[in-house]
């Protein structure tokens, strides 16, 4: 097993493609996405029952080294500040 950083992000589905572009630009080589995530937060109830993605979240997670994780955080901080959402980084063991 190898030490790695797990970056988890929850953001409005509507901004998903923009966020994924940013991740790739900073060198993230792979990620997983849950597209239809509902929940509750500072933007109110995200019930996911609209025809647009206005009230729906997406969950993204990726595993990377510490340097890339720092770049990811810096790249997405302005997005989170502008549109809302959360991002956490944790230490994990990557089974290889």
């Amino acid at each position, binding site marked *: 097993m190898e030490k790695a950083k797990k970056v988890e992000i929850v953001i409005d589905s*509507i*901004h998903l493609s923009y966020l994924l572009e940013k991740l790739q630009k900073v060198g993230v080589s792979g990620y997983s996405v849950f597209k239809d995530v509902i929940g509750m937060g500072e*933007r109110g109830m995200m*019930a996911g*029952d*609209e*025809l647009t993605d*206005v009230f729906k979240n997406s969950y993204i997670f990726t595993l990377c080294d510490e340097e890339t994780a720092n770049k990811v955080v810096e790249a997405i901080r302005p997005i989170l500040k*502008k*549109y809302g959402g959360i991002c956490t980084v944790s230490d994990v063991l990557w089974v290889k």
Partner: protein
Amino acid sequence: MSLDLLMQNILNPAIMMFFLGLFAAILKSPLDIPQPLPKLFSLYLLIAIGFHGGYELAKSGITGDVLKVLLLAILMAILVPIYAFFILRIKFDVYNAAAIAATYGSISAVTFITAGNFLNTLGVNYGGYMVAAMTLMESPAIVIGLILVSFFAVKSLNDDLNGNTSRLNLKEVLNESLLNPSVYILLGTLIIGFVTGEKGWKAVEPLFGNLFKGMLAFFLLDMGIVAGKRLVEVKKVGTFLIGFAVLLPVFNAFVAIGLAKIFGLSKGDALMFTVLCASASYIAVPAAMRMSIPEANPSLYVTPALAITFPFNISFGIPLYYTIINNIWG
């Protein structure tokens, strides 16, 4: 408004399905339509209405009268968000006022389709070019909303992510306005319907013509559920916005009826034009506003459009507007 006309509208299967969904949500029934299906129904309705409109347009041809209607449509799509914005500024900040104004400046395709259904029941025709008018009315409000923000916002709270202070990123605005799914699919199917004409329409009619009313009823069931869930938020938006969500559409309808009379639109076209001006977008514009004006609260622009204006228009508005038009046109 005659009671007969009102009852005839409300006793339509599609409208009753809407209320069935609405009451399911109010009574907390676990009735639910799996998520991808409403999107499919919505696409189906847009394709059907676009295709049929294109076919009707091919039959009637693009005449001076058609261009007149299209110009009127654009005029109203620009005017409505501007005066709506100044009314909303009484209570709301620039961001929320602009986002709500854009929502009410744009149109609701489902209200339009329901009005078409209402006219069909009465045996009154409307031109296929009204679909083109609808397509043209969807986007200007988005652009006007962004222009209003860039004019009236004291300073941008959150400047563009790239550091640009201008909110009018031309590429982004055009992308939002012209390539949003409903505009794209409506315009695309309108062109396909126009180019393929009667032969094309006959080929797709079994799916997009014969099944239309049933699909509309199914879609409205879902709309009822969604609107019912949003009803709990109505109290939070305040009495000003609740009043606005009913009175602005009625005011827009009066302006539209006046313009339709002055410019000599037929009775059917006048109703469809009126419904377009009186309806509010709860699909295309909210998505664009969430992207472009993140400072605005989506509950304030989605809830009134979806939970007040839409049910009002499809149950009372359409027969009310038609009664007025019928009395004036004779």
